[in-house]
């Protein structure tokens, strides 16, 4: 028996098996078909205007990527990005503020840091 004949025989049995599907299942299939047909849409009529804009919005909002899970992931990503930006800006500012505060509150005048003699004295005294 060649491939085609075997396939034909198998399909004959499968077709016979379709007659053995439970009545309840057939009823559910019929109900599913009716529900699907209720969603049948006719071809849209051509209209004047910015049809592409509406279509783009429709495509975006009805895209399979536009679901709650993806929106949640996108929201989390945005929140994390904002957090990272805030953190990056906040940390250097506080460091600089601390240095400024220590310089201003120190008894040593600021000009001392610019004096090369003071730096040499500092090295010598630390040794």
């Amino acid at each position, binding site marked *: *028996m060649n*491939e085609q004949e*075997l*396939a*034909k*025989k*198998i*399909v*004959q*049995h*499968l*077709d*016979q*098996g*379709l*007659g*053995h*599907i*439970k*009545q309840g*299942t*057939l009823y*559910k*299939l*019929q109900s*599913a*078909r009716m*529900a*699907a*047909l209720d*969603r*049948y*849409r*006719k*071809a*849209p009529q051509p209209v004047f205007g910015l049809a592409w804009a509406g279509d783009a919005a429709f495509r975006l909002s009805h895209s399979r990527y536009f679901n709650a899970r993806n929106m949640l992931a996108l929201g989390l990503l945005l929140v994390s990005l904002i957090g990272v930006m805030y953190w990056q800006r906040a940390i250097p500012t506080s460091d600089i503020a601390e240095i400024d505060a220590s310089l201003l509150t120190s008894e040593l005048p600021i000009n001392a840091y610019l004096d090369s003699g003071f730096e040499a004295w500092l090295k010598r005294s630390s040794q």
Partner: protein
Amino acid sequence: MRRTHPSPTQPRLTTRQIPLATRKELSDFLAAVERRAYKQALFAARDEQVALDAVQDAMMRLAEKYSTRPSAELPMLFQRILQNTIRDHFRRQKVRALWTPPMSSLRGGEDGDDHDPLETLQAHSDSNSREAPSDQLQQAQTLELIEEALRKLPVRQRQAFVLRYWEEMDVATAAGAMGCSEGSVKTHCSRAIHALAVLLKDKGISL
């Protein structure tokens, strides 16, 4: 020789013969393919409720989004939607399995060891048919073994076999539905038939 559909009230329509343009024609198409689609989903998912849900989802999406497409494309689109729906189900199941602790040990065994093909045999409305009960039993057992063999096939091989031989799609349409090349469809088909022949031979079935 053309195959005939088992139900006399529901004439067999091949996918190539159905021009889809009106609601009535879409209804006829869905009525013609729904049983095979259900069985196809059942082979893959092995769960009646999941199979029904998959077929319903596929019908909904076809009617909602693709009913205005050229009629020749619709059978291919329906099959593609159905395959995607089944694949989505497996993905969701996989994710759920990661989060759900394994409870299989607490459940009762549903192995096929105690399964009796007679339990799935439905009484025909024409119970007084001329076929002898022994013939009916043999047919039911053969069908059960064929379906079991189909379930055991790798997914792509089963898809190729069903689309090419059960849905009577040509190679190009089947390739479109499967999202692969025509050569792949031929290869999958050939391997599927060889695997089925071996599986049925092992069970002692000669068709």
